[in-house]
């Protein structure tokens, strides 16, 4: 089984790095879409289905938290798991993101293994493609 991934970050370099890490992690990726902010992400999602969204928070126009709100309001898109990947790592900000629907949280700067670990947890598959039972990233909740 392979997955469609959407990476949302206003930094083209960061999108490239995340895409590279996801690719080399062995994650079965069918397609990888990219958006520069939440507005562009919603435009892409109007015509493309994705299985997981990896999104920055601090972005122009529509930020990552606002993107979570827009997804939540949309019956078709609200079940798509979203992983926040951001410099804004305060415990309150993390709680806010989880409260608004995020399923995972990665702080920048990150190690490649951190993205891989959270991605596999959130999507609910093991590294060999088997489905995991607990899809919630709870590691980051221990603050």
């Amino acid at each position, binding site marked *: 089984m392979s997955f469609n991934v959407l990476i949302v970050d206003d930094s083209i370099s960061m999108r490239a790095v995340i895409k590279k890490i996801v690719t080399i992690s062995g994650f079965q990726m069918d397609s990888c879409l990219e958006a520069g902010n939440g507005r562009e992400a919603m435009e892409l999602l109007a015509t493309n289905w994705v299985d997981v969204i990896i999104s920055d928070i601090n972005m122009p126009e529509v930020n990552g938290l606002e993107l979570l709100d827009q997804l939540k309001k949309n019956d078709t898109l609200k079940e798509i798991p979203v992983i926040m990947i951001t410099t804004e*790592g*305060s415990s309150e900000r993390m709680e806010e993101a989880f409260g608004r629907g995020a399923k995972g949280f990665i702080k920048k700067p990150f190690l490649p293994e951190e993205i891989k670990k959270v991605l596999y947890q959130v999507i609910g598959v093991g590294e060999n493609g088997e489905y995991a039972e607990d899809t919630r990233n709870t590691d980051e909740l221990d603050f």
Partner: protein
Amino acid sequence: MVNTQKIQEILMNSIFEVFEKMFFVFLEPVDEDVKYDLISTINFMGPINGEVKIFFTMGIAETMVQNMLSLNRKDVTEKIIEDCAKEAVNMISGNFLQKLDSSKVFDLSIPTYAKKAGVFTSQVQNQSGAIWNLSFESEGNLMAVSVSIPAEGQ
């Protein structure tokens, strides 16, 4: 609030972590002026407000981009340098503020970038607030980071 020396230590560790993890650049603190070519800036707002600036020489900016994106020097464009410079200041400020006090929420501005040459000197003092100026060297290339917190009401 932690003291000035502790803040400098936290800032230094934040800078090292960002440059090592994301750009594979290993910095050494130095005590010298930096003739910079580029500046990226971000503002933070929260329990305290302030500004973080990075002063890059072109050499260190190109090295960062090459390392982060596995590019050859000929493939490094100004657009990608700008993007990486802005992302660097974004990550340093976020990492610094989180290490300073992870229980507090800070809002970060969208980073800005300027191709502007000048000389950074660590001796510059902020007359009406606090400032931390740090210079670094990596493989013969220099850069500097400045964090300033204006006095309340300014």
